[in-house]
């Protein structure tokens, strides 16, 4: 059985600030290379201080466009994440699953959205 790969986000992007979608893309490219080969990956967030949804969407969210939920669940693990960062990642993952179920479905909840607001002129 192949050894689990450990990717350090800090090493990949060279910063504790994970804010740019382009940096997320670099993490994503490494993950894709490993997951395509069926390798297990542990993604370490050690020394990461700031995360945005834009970074996580690019790094991890878009994996759901290529791999099944089952495959991602079986092969990918994260470690060294603070509780609030885990919560953000969970939301990114849930959003990505919905997005790839029907990526062009834009009218979802529009009426509720607009109905919730108050008007002012």
């Amino acid at each position, binding site marked *: 059985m192949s050894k689990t790969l450990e990717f350090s986000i800090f090493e990949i992007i060279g910063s504790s*600030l994970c*804010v740019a979608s382009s940096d997320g893309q670099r993490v994503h490219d490494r993950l894709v290379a490993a997951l395509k080969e069926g390798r297990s990956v542990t993604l370490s967030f050690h020394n990461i201080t700031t995360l*945005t949804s834009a970074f996580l969407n690019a790094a991890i969210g878009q994996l759901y466009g290529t791999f099944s939920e089952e495959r991602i669940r079986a092969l990918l693990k994260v470690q060294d994440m603070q*509780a609030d960062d*885990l919560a953000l990642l969970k939301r990114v993952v849930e959003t990505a699953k*919905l997005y790839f179920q029907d990526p062009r479905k834009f009218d979802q909840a529009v009426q509720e959205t607009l109905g919730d607001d108050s008007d002012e002129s």
Partner: protein
Amino acid sequence: MNSSLPAIHHDQAGFEALVRLHGQTKDCVLDDIAIDMSATTWFDADMCAALGAILYRLGEQANTVKLQNIHPQVENILSKNGFLSHYGRTRIPDHWGTTIPYHRFDVKDDRYFADYIETELMHRSEMPSMSPGLMKKFRESVFEIFSNAVLHSRTTQGIFSCGQFFPRRNRLDFSVTDLGIGIRQNVQEAGLNLAPEMAIAWATEGRNTTKSGQIPGGLGLKLLGEFIDLNGGRIQIVSDAGYWRREGGNTVRCRLSQPFPGTLVTVEINTADTQSYILTSELSSADIF
């Protein structure tokens, strides 16, 4: 071309004044544009991001812009934050350290923007003491706003930011403006034809995104709104002729008289917020995927 500006506060009337200025000057090419600021008795410093964007656009059309009759106290603050350096004035030191300098970034300047935020906001001794949780949420929010501009605006003329904090009022204002296509057009290209203010409302809901292709989106503005609700602050967005505001969990939207040439997001943070922002329910890393 001669134009003028009234007092500019960080509110709907302030945005209205700026879109009027844009409306009056947007078609000028190779012109001398004099903006009379004798009636500008107040200028909320973070609004430099919006004014700077409008004036930069005029410069791109080969116009020469002159700001005239500036009140001394307005000149003082706009010189401290570096805004007037772009219009022939000398920058003066900010001894109280309450300004967050005016800056223009290109869309590829993510790292540069991150350095700016760390240097000018997070690691300044003059910053009000905020709880570590609040600092983290605020930092994330600012980056979400910038990322949103990078991902959606398609601007070729840049992204502008500026801020100010008010120690006695426990308030920090920060604005990010782009000269991109605006939320309405983004939403329109995604297949929905909404009024400008409706398009902003739509984009601020979680799961709604104008992004298509391989990278999902749709959380940034939603997260920002949630944080502002918890913090007791305020967020305002102007895009096209739409105006949208969220404060105390309530949302207001309306139409400005003319469009803004891009999107402006401005936040007011309550720096005296003592919430820990530490989650009470533990989420296991095994339950993420």
